[in-house]
């Protein structure tokens, strides 16, 4: 199997931003994503409420260009006001065409 190098972009954010972020990454070219419920603490500490539930971690495998677009967008839209972080790393994927 030939492996292709792609970017795995990870976004961790307050739960109520989930739908917003998913819509955004889809518009920027993501073909799929995986969501995990996580808990976390960072520079802001407190979350809005117990009812809302935990943070979410959104992972999406995309090409370099899309990755940059997503990272830029997250930085612009959410960094100032919300508890959200984003990072990316290179992974080796089978059937790379599926993700582009």
């Amino acid at each position, binding site marked *: 199997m030939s492996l292709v190098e792609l970017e795995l972009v990870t976004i961790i954010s*307050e739960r*109520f931003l989930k739908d917003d972020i998913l819509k955004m990454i889809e518009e920027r070219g993501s073909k799929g994503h995986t969501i995990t419920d996580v808990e976390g603490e960072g520079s802001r*500490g*407190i*979350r*809005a*409420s*117990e*009812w*809302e*539930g*935990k943070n979410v971690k959104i992972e999406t495998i995309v090409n370099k260009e899309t990755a940059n677009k997503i990272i830029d967008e997250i930085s612009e839209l959410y960094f100032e*006001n*919300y508890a959200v972080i984003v990072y990316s790393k290179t992974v080796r994927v089978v059937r790379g065409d599926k993700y582009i």
Partner: protein
Amino acid sequence: MDTIITNLTSPVVMAFVMGIMVKAIKSDLEFPQVLYKSISIYLLVAIGLKGGVELSKTPFSEFILPASATIFMGIITPIIAFVIIRYLGKVDLDNSAGVAAHYGSVSMVTFLASISYLQTEGLEPEGFMPTLLALLEIPGIIVALMIPLLQKSSNSSFGKAMHEVVTGGSIVLLLGGLIIGFIAGPVKFQSIEPFFVNGFQGALFLFLLELGMVTARRFRDLKKVGFFIVAFGILVPILHGFLAILIGFWSGLSLAGTVVFATMVSSASYIAAPAAVRIALPKASPTIYLTASLGITFPFNITIGIPLYYAISLWIGG
């Protein structure tokens, strides 16, 4: 004093205190978040259903004045809260409006605790009180979120916050339950009654145990928010409660109904309001509004507020 002790030894209030103690002794006990959410869903649906069934038995004429009084209080309490915190407390615009949204809305559990309390005193409030609870949940949040709109330029996320307020999980469950209970009426309700009525107080017991643990975590933030917010979280509920007692009696509510009404009005939301404020006013700090509503006003009302509103109501209208 006596009424406070009666209140403090009721099982649900003791469960709340137990929750606080559990955290104080640094126990590793954790309630699964899913259990918390499941009990919330159950309580909201149950309140809605029972309220709807009762409403179906209430003549419209009896209900119209208390309903109007509720909406009136929903409009003025966030304004009062805003003015106090903004101009007396010199807190910035966003945080002031954020806190006001919480005190304009309502806390379901405080409402329930007041009903439990009255029942141990042998009193039964009007059956349609849950309808008033639903009516009071929304307007205060809308009013509070509109204040910064008037003072600032336009806010793009106001519309989104309004959608959240009106379709938020808690209001949907409460209103959905109300409508179903209303249509079903007492006879059709019977089949689901054991589940939603018999289990209710016990589920509330577990919920307050968990809320005690949540509250204890908020206590850590008390020093961060400062003395003004602490005073605010105790005095504003008393003020709101007092106004509500006057308006409640005026609208024709019974003694018990007035106490529940005052408790409702004085309480601060911690489900619907935080979600909406997070969206509309992202710069408002959760540390301030959640510490005030959940760390101060909630425990105050549960332990001292309710018997206090009862005492005042007895004195004014008994």
